[in-house]
């Protein structure tokens, strides 16, 4: 066996006997036993979890962790559009068209922890849209989006948590510039978008305050479409600024409420027609959203939210449900 072998046996014996030493009861142990543990159920942790489930963009995953979330959202947009038509060479007419767009979105969001402080996320929306005023409908993949969230500084108790984010939107949905606007509906933006911003959240038990600011650059797109009797050739959608703020409140271990306000300002788009260049209107969208988080089992939180738009450019009604997709069979056995 030799000296090495003896050393090994000695170390093993030592290792096995270590727990025996610490088994002796002490005041410290009693204090330790009574103090809070990480996996204890307490309102602060419940709050953090519920907040994470409701406001996914504020929180990160551990390295290698994966989650899949299913969301179902409904929104209603009622609007009356005044459209100008060129019927002859110089004859224009103005027609008011009312529309009521009911949009149902089933979305699957995949989150992956690249590092402990960097999370990659991807969202795949499947959109069904109905215009009940004009009797039109469309089913289509929506615009895919991907994002990275990075937390540059470790979080400390009593300090706000700051994360920076970058997003990329892909025009995989049906573009509003590649349809016949009289007969068809769109399910996407029709252009690429690149955005970034910062999220901040701050826990004051039993409340989490949160807020964000961001900027999105929308990439101009070349199009070929007849709009109001004119040939539309290029669209520069204009960039947008957005902000949000709100708070989440834990009513109990199982129930929490969250309220948020979101606002975004889209700068003037530019439409290049074959015979003229026109500027569109700035758009301001503002939304109030209320969500209820219900813990249906220790690790399973379902979120239900309802909201309303506060400007003409916003959806009138918003409803949604989201839940983690945790298919037991898919996890390694």
């Amino acid at each position, binding site marked *: 066996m030799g000296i090495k072998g003896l050393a090994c046996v000695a170390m093993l014996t030592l290792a096995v006997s270590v727990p025996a030493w610490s088994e002796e009861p002490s005041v410290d142990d009693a204090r330790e036993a009574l103090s809070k543990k990480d996996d204890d159920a307490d309102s602060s942790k419940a709050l953090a979890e519920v907040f994470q489930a409701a406001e996914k963009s504020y929180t990160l995953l551990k390295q290698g962790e994966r989650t899949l979330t299913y969301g179902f959202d409904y929104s209603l947009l009622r609007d009356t559009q005044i459209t100008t038509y060129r019927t002859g060479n110089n004859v224009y007419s103005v027609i008011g068209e009312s529309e009521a767009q009911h949009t149902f979105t089933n979305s699957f969001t995949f989150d992956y922890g690249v590092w402990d402080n960097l999370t990659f996320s991807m969202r795949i929306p499947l*959109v069904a849209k109905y215009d009940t005023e004009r009797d039109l409908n*469309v089913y289509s993949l929506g615009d895919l989006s991907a994002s990275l969230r990075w937390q540059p500084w470790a979080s400390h108790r009593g300090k706000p948590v700051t994360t920076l984010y970058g997003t990329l939107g892909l025009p995989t949905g049906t573009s509003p510039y*590649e*349809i016949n606007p009289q007969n068809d509906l769109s399910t996407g933006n029709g252009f690429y978008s690149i955005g970034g911003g910062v999220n901040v959240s701050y826990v004051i038990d039993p409340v989490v305050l949160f807020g964000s600011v961001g900027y999105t650059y929308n990439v101009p797109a070349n199009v*070929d479409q007849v709009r109001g009797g004119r040939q539309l050739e290029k669209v520069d959608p204009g960039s947008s600024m957005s902000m949000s703020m709100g708070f989440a409140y834990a009513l109990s271990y199982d129930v929490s409420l969250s309220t948020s306000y979101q606002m975004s300002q889209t700068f003037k788009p530019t439409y290049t027609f074959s015979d003229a260049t026109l500027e569109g209107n700035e758009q301001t969208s503002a939304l109030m959203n209320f969500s209820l988080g219900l813990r249906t089992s220790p690790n399973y939180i379902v979120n239900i939210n309802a909201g309303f738009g506060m400007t003409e450019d916003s959806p009138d009604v918003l409803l949604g449900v989201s839940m983690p997709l945790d298919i037991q069979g898919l996890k390694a056995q």
Partner: protein
Amino acid sequence: MTTRNSPQVWAISGFCWLAAGLYAGGAQAQLANDLTIGNPKAMAMGNAVTADSTGIDAVHYNPAALTKLKGRQSTIKLLSGVMDIRAKFKSTPNYGDNAMGYDDDPVKDTSTRTLTPVMYLPGMGGMTELPVLMAPLAGVSINPPGSKFTFATNIYAPMALGYSRDSDDDAGRYQGREVALQRITYFSPSVGYQANDTLALGLSVGFSHQAMALNQDFRNPGMLTGVVRMLNEALCQDGIGDVLGPLINVCGAKIGPYDTLANMDLDLQQSLSPTYNLGVLWEPSDWFAWGATYQSEARMHLQGKYRMNYTKEWQGFWSGLQSSVFGQVLSPLFPYGNVSEESGSASLNMVLPDNFSTGIKLRPFEKWQFNFDAKWSDYSDWNKFEIEFDRELDLLRIAKIFGNGNATDHSIILDRGYQDTWSFAVGAQYDVTDRLALRAGYEYRPSAIPKDKADVLVPIGDANLYGLGFGYRWDKDTTVDFGVNYFVSKQSIPAGTSCNVNCTGIDNLVYNPYADLDIKTTVKAYIMAFSYTTTF
């Protein structure tokens, strides 16, 4: 053994009589249903698998059979095939009489043949020619231990027909220079439920991408273009043309019955089209099983782009005519001929037909299994395809006058008039050992296209499908399956019998590019698939 056999024999003979009766009652079948699912067992058994287990493809054939999949299984499939599409155009004895006597048609007494497959690749250029058709497909299923439920999702192609005749001298280019009609189900959450020892139920929801892309040349062999050519030849002599030019100018360019006038490129798709399949499987004993499946329809609104290119002859002739007094008086009736290309957005309302199938599985002897299926397909949904354009097209200005109601300012109506079909299939399996099973099958598929609606665009008449294959259990958890299909369909369209291809009336401008020609088409498809199923 003998006592066990007698009811089976009765059942088999009864079913054969039933099938024969239905067959004699004038059955019709389908187009390309089930041809591209790529399930080796189903292929080998002629798609007579409604009462049988087909692994992960039960999502399509009968979701109730998903209950046969235990534990956690994954399947990968490789589907490959060749489609040999041919058409012959034979002139009739008095060919040309309907086009003012002109009979110098380069298409007459020629033929076209293509083997080039086309797939529609969404987001990657749409219609794409491929050197070989090869599609990898996959699916997974999960049956939690002890559960009566089996969950699954699968990727498969319920519809795929694509070919290219992309050449300026291909005789078939006036009805499909490039065509892709394709449906890919990319996500299909499904559940099978074992209700009791003998009864299983199943539901699958399919999320599919549907594409319809078409590139084709236009011509109009008939009296109208014959007259135009005759006028051109009579009036555009030196001297006469100069005198008449300001009044009526037919000398801008020469167009005739057999000239290509335009080319249309159409690219339509819908990235999400939901459907559902319902299935039931009843297995009262180990020698008999019955299954039935309903596959729902999908009402679609395909959207996309079009591009119309006009030949120099088209542009020259019509802009010349419009410049004369005669042209200006009748200007609203005629094309302008002032653009070489038009492009924009187009849309098409299309219904994916619903299907119903039912069948039985019999095991009269220890090593033998026989399957019989009957399938109904609701192709009468394909009555008309109306392609709507976002603006008035130059070609449509004339087509709407001479199109017999099949064209408007903004749309072309492709008259289909297809009919519902019943088809019948039979399959057999012989278990050589516990591990190896040999399979063969046959499916009779009468066409959904009536004789007076046949064309060269979708040249699928009554068809026969033959299948062969085997399954081999590699080990406890792994099986491999291999199947081949030979599909053959021939049709004959005598001149003037189908106003989708060869009618001669002056109002048949939409769309009879082979007016007065006798046409024979053949489609032969050789399809093979390999699948590998294992646990994970």
